[in-house]
């Protein structure tokens, strides 16, 4: 029932996902507000300017942007029924996501070595909770994409399931956009 277009002419799952994304916006808005409220309120270092590495994170951001592009290509291939390309681009999307996560793991590790722990100061707490929540979202997204990829390898994903891929894509783009906001707020505007 739910997969068919309903009284709004929209797939129910897609609509639910839009509602979910609306809700997630509030979640990230609250976290970002917390970050902003506590900006400059740390009682001790390390402070953002001493530690944030903009070139490195710009690369991560670019990587995530590219993954959105790959996602678009994956979806359009699957909608066309071109599963060979579809599989490839799904995998590339997931891989780019993994690279982003790898970067985040490296970054967290690096910061920890420079003395910024979760409880070191308000910057540490707000930074890790905000970017960590985003990272958790990316992790869910990567898992989802890999699941779809495996399904595709097993021949269980085809144009008939394009809606599933479209929804995963919606989520992926959202996570991407959120990162752009975080990147701007945390890294660019210090």
């Amino acid at each position, binding site marked *: *029932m*739910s997969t068919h277009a*309903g*009284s*709004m002419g*929209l797939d*129910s799952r897609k*609509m*639910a996902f839009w*509602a*979910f994304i*609306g*809700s*997630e916006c*509030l*979640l990230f808005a*609250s*976290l970002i507000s*917390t970050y902003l*409220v*506590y900006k400059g*309120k*740390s*009682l001790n270092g390390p402070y953002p300017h001493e530690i944030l590495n903009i070139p490195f994170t710009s690369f991560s951001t670019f990587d995530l942007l590219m993954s959105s592009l790959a996602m678009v290509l994956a979806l359009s291939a699957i909608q066309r029924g071109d599963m060979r390309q579809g599989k490839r681009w799904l995998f590339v999307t997931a891989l780019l996501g993994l690279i982003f996560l790898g970067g985040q793991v490296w970054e967290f590790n690096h910061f920890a070595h420079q003395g910024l722990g*979760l*409880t070191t*100061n*308000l910057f540490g*707490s*707000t930074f890790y*909770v905000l970017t960590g*929540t985003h990272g958790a979202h990316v992790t869910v997204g990567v898992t989802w994409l890999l*699941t779809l990829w495996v399904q595709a390898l097993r021949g269980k994903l085809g144009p008939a399931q394009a809606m599933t891929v479209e929804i995963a894509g919606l989520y992926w783009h959202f996570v991407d956009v959120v990162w752009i906001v975080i990147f701007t707020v945390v890294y660019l505007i210090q």
Partner: protein
Amino acid sequence: MKSWITTTDHKRIGLLYFWTAFAFFLIGGLEALVIRAQLARPEGVGVSAEVFNQMFTMHGTTMVFLALMPLTASLFNFIIPLQIGARDVAFPRLNAFSYWVFVLGGVFLNASFFVGPLFGTGALSVAPDAGWFGYANLTSRQYSPGPNIDFWVLGVQILGVASLAAGFNFIVTILNMRAPGMRMLRVPVFTWMTLVTQFIVITAFPVITVALVLLMFDRFFGTHFFVPAGGGDPILWQHLFWMFGHPEVYILILPAMGIVSEVLPTFSRKPLFGYIVVVYSGILIGFLGWGVWSHHMFAVGLGPIADSVFAGTTMLIAIPTGVKIFNWIATLWGGQLRFTTAMLFALGFIAMFIIGGLSGVTHASPPADLQQTDTYYVVAHIHYVLFGGTMLGLFAGFYYWWPKMTGRLLSETLGRWHFWLSLIGMNLAFFPMHFSGLLGMPRRIYTYPDELGVTSMNLVSTIGAFLIGVATLVFFWNLFRHRRALAPGAGPSDPWGGATLEWAVPSPPPVYNFSVMPVVEGRLPLWRTARHEPIAPLPATPPAPIHVPGGSWWPLITAAALPVMATGAVSRELWVVLLGVAVLIVGVYRWAYEPFEG
């Protein structure tokens, strides 16, 4: 038994919600009675300060999250698919998931009453004890070292998941599952108010989610989000909490306003006056509800400009609310009023809610509120709107729809007893609180000196509370004892002559709801209006067999993962947390790849 546990049928889930939430209402009421018994006399003899603090905290938390919200969810579940002409909600398994998360979250929260020995605290109960809005930094590990607040943080977090899942589900159901011809401006007002409510849910709950996550980090990992010693600011908690907490009170009242908007027309034999205005004012209340949260913080000292702005936005809400009330009165005007129990409760709702709304307006004036906040005057306000408003509205809804839900009428005689005892009880209980508050009695005190001069008012409040208890027992009795069946098969499935689609199907409805999909041509499909005839009766049996999806275990199993994780967290056992995570992952995957049509 199994068929109930695995059910994905919105009607069964509606009934499950009802019985569970009603049980929690009794528990919350019992806690209220402990509070009232303690305060019947000065110099607090009875329970200890610790127990008292647990009582009001759990009373508030239980009533809001475990009784009133799920009672509204019961009616959403049962009635909305019927009102819009759908066979089920958009996501039946997600619906079952919401229910199980709610039950298990409630059990988890209440388990804190009995597990003290496991934490070596020397007391049986380690129930939360920092009030239903858990103000930081009292809730920090330093000032609340025990597991009490952990139960609260994790329990409320779990309940939030249930509400969010239900929120997405009902938004899609209402927007996307309407029968042919059921345009948005033909949707019954109850469904409309539910839609607005669910939009508030999905926007307000993420905020409390974040607040609770931050508090959890403070308590479990030693961050300083709300700890002044580390530069944190406890006032941030207040902002985050009330940004959720104020919209929450509209989450509680809008469904009741929807119910009343259904009951009044039916028993006045007149369509709702100003349908469009009632709908739009509901939407407006939802929007305005977002801009007023700091009226809970007038004593914080946010400065005169902030106070003025929030006073203004708060007062504005009185306008759309007043508009609703005037439209309801206009609906009665010129009607043929039948005073069934449902109608009595709906009228009681209007009469009592006005009182609560007006005391709300006196709160909205910050200087005046400086004398009222944190006193029994606020307690009076919240019970006039929550009991006099939401609860009376819900009772109206249950008397109205019980025949639809069970096929049995409740006794009107017992119903009248229930109504009058509730009405008298609530006024005895809550009206004197205006005075005790203005005469200087703060809230959340387990004892007060006789010297204050509020002893007799408190005694009256206590008597009233026990009267409400008696009324509730009458209702309980009514639910169980009185089972006058609707004449089966014979008369119409509609004992009241309602205008909306739920009355077009048998009572109780068959599992597929509608034998054929109705085509809707107006706002009052079952009534004869100037423009169109009532829709033709649906065939008694479906012309072609209707496939109904079977049940599923995965919603329950997935839901169970959450309390498992929370248990691991309160007991500091990492492996239990990981076990919960594993259950969650398995549950989600099996759910996603289960063959299930629905």
